[in-house]
């Protein structure tokens, strides 16, 4: 299947390269779950994931499921020069989403009209700081990657 992420040149979008700390995020994403690392000792959430809690220094953690809801904190529209797969969809949007469950946690992503739609599928006029968004997941090169859709479509 040719996905929206592939260009005519056959170049594809960059895949996340998980490190040891980030791997669980991507494993949960593959199940369609947006989870965030949480300290099991003090309960504080942290992002990006890391070996120990910056608040209580405990090395025990778990991955807590979030509602996948958030608000746009900021956004940009990159124009070329860009890597080929991105240039093919440019100008596209990149948004920064503040999670409803943990406003200090902000995830970079793309606002799209539906999970598998192109990165430039949303009318730029609809990009607004504060807009409510919901996480959805799409497959890119065999990995499940979160995207965002407007709560009020």
């Amino acid at each position: 299947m040719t996905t929206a992420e592939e260009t005519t040149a056959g170049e594809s979008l960059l895949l996340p390269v998980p490190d040891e700390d980030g791997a669980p995020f991507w494993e949960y994403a593959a199940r369609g779950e947006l989870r965030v690392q949480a300290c099991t000792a003090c309960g504080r959430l942290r992002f990006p994931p890391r070996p120990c809690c910056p608040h209580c220094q405990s090395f025990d953690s778990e991955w807590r499921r979030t509602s996948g809801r958030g608000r746009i904190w900021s956004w940009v529209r990159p124009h070329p020069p860009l890597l080929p797969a991105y240039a093919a969809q440019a100008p596209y949007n990149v948004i920064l989403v503040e999670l409803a469950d943990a406003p200090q946690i902000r995830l970079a992503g793309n606002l799209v009209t539906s999970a598998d739609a192109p990165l430039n599928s949303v009318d730029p006029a609809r990009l607004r700081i504060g807009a409510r968004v919901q996480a959805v997941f799409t497959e890119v090169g065999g990995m499940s990657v979160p995207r965002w859709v407007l709560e009020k479509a």
Partner: protein
Amino acid sequence: MAATLKDATAIVGIGQTAFAKRLPSSEKELACRAILAALADAGIAPSEVDAFASYTMEETDEVEVAKAIGAGDVTFFSKVGYGGGGSCATVGHLAAAIATGQATVGVAWRSRKRGSGPRPWKNTAVQLPTPGQWTRPFGLLRPADEIGMLARRYMHEYGATRDHLFNVAMACRNRANENPAAMMYERPLTREMYMSSRMISEPLCLFDNCLETDGALACVIVSAERARDCRQKPVYVHSAAQGLPAQHHGMVNYWNDDPLSGPAWTAARHLWKQADFGPSDVDVAQIYDAFTPLIPLSLEGYGFCGRGEGAAFTEGGALELGGRLPINTGGGGLSEAYVHGFNLINEGVKQLRGTSTAQVPDAATCLVTAGEGVPTSAILLRA
């Protein structure tokens, strides 16, 4: 032994190569040329150099430079990370080494072929594992995209406009128009050019971005005592600081509780604590300008105005010659050359020597800053 860095050392030599989109020489050759020019300016023999400092992103190692220029035994060397955040720290590290007797003649330098060399963000699909996994798959590929995100939020929170960013670009271009060595010499900028230029990463347009430059710069640092016997008027390193704020993550500071108060705030607190004067006593500033929004953010961070007031500060010609705080008097990274901010250090020295092409009358104090957004550094220079 000095208990403080305050005025214990001085910059006594500066050197640079030409700045251009394309230079035929290698980075190594450019480095050697800039360093030898700085030593000649100081009147110090290369064999006396016993300390080096540069950036981790500098491709030419001190081993190569020392061998090529004919340095003697080297007893201190240091490389500072985080790209443009390292510029002022190279001076700070050498000042500390010399003030504590670890070395006597230090050379800091940066050589870079960015105009004709590789652009890592454009041509490389290879992804750094952290924090790239959280940003690059989504198309935040370049520093301009990452700073654009902060800029949009800053504009939203404080009512900053593209006209404010233009004020920054214009001040730098006006100074470059006075500096024959600048890449943008004799290339005036107008508001219409700015407003109609192509977008790079909205809200940032072409003129919000620094130049792509081939070139190198260097400076020579010795003790204040030695400086008195040098050929040039000493420019004292009055205060130096680095800044890596709590919970910082590099260029994408989005996971900090307060992403709009970046590394500048951290560096500034230490910088001013060690100084005999404050922001209102600064005659001229060289503020790292890889992107225009870094100027209002830095004006706030270094205490020239309050939080959220950086954009308004740029109004009424405040950043121009004769304004409240003339900045980037050689043209800065936006219009003189982008060599990871080292040209700002040398321009600061020129101002305090009284030899700038856009001289602030009787300038006696100068702030120089390194890249904001990344772990940064800053120095206060005084005549």
